[in-house]
């Protein structure tokens, strides 16, 4: 770490973030695939009414057997819910991680970028799952509840988990990963500052 370690880290992180964010936005299809597939697999594993997932670009559509009434031409028609979510809302953290690792350049930084990118996939998938669950639990109505059996405290838990994953986990996960992948940065900062007269 250089004498102006934190300032240099901030400056380089900002530069890298701005430089990488636009390319990430336009090439996120490939990054979206594993997260959406994993999220679909998790939903199918835990909920028998979740049949699978369909991906169009960065948008993941959960295919379900959850019935819901929809008004159409004066009639109420029964249809299956297919909530969708855009991966980008839960995927931008990877750019932050890349930017921070590029700025601090720990040993084997390229490998750490690859590891971090993979480790973030389950975090992104959790966000996608709770986004779908929120839509099904709160927009499905009584007919959907008959299939999902999501009631009472489970609704509260889904609301909390959705908010937590969207507002906290998604932006925070890359920062925690960076701390874990570059422990040397914090150690150097501590040792240098605590040994100053």
């Amino acid at each position: 770490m250089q004498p102006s370690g934190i300032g240099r880290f901030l400056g380089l992180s900002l530069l890298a973030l701005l430089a990488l964010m636009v390319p990430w936005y336009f090439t996120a299809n490939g990054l979206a695939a594993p997260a959406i597939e994993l999220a679909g697999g998790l939903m199918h594993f835990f909920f028998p009414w979740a049949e699978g997932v369909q991906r169009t670009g960065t948008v993941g559509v959960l295919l379900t057997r959850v019935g819901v009434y929809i008004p159409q031409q004066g009639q109420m028609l029964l249809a299956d819910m297919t909530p969708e979510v855009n991966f980008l809302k839960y995927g931008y953290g990877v750019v932050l991680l890349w930017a921070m690792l590029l700025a601090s350049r720990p040993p084997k930084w390229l490998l750490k970028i690859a590891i971090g990118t993979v480790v973030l996939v389950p975090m992104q998938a959790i966000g996608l799952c709770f986004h779908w669950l929120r839509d099904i639990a709160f927009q499905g109505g009584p007919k959907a509840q008959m299939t999902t059996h999501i009631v009472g405290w489970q609704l509260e838990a889904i609301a909390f988990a959705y908010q937590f994953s969207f507002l906290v986990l998604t932006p925070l996960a890359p920062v925690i990963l960076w701390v874990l992948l570059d422990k040397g940065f914090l150690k150097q900062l501590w040792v240098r500052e605590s040994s100053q007269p």
Partner: protein
Amino acid sequence: MIRFFSIFVGTLALLFGIEMLSPVQQSVVHPWTGFLAYASAHLMQLFDGSIISHDRILQSSASGFGVSIEAGCNGVEAAIILIAGMLAFPSSLKLKLAGIVIGIVAVQGVNLLRIISLFYLGQWNYQAFEFAHLYLWQALIMLDVLVVWLLWIRAVARETPPPETEAPLAA
């Protein structure tokens, strides 16, 4: 390291849970968000007299364009993460309190910049607004939280007697 993360995650979940409670939303978060709209409007009026605010809404009386400041854009979650990070890291109570107060001011200062920049970006181009709102500024605010936390750790290290040179998170 394990101790730090245990306290950090526990404090984070607790503070976030408290924030989500309806009485806290009504008595703290909503008024705070309204204050942010008010403060943003006053700052913007220094160079743009057409800006008005009402409750959580920031609006241009000239163009009619307006934005509502919602959860995730009021800096509360960012402040909670910072507080949890400072409470979990071993330091004196005095340094924790000073760090939390100064840190919240720093985070909210950048958040005001976010609100103002997004307001003008939204008037210019909606796609650019969405990009900056949902992805870019989210990452920038978290980077801000991290840098404030690092600066605070630097201050803690300077206050720590020389024999304790082992970094508390190094284990």
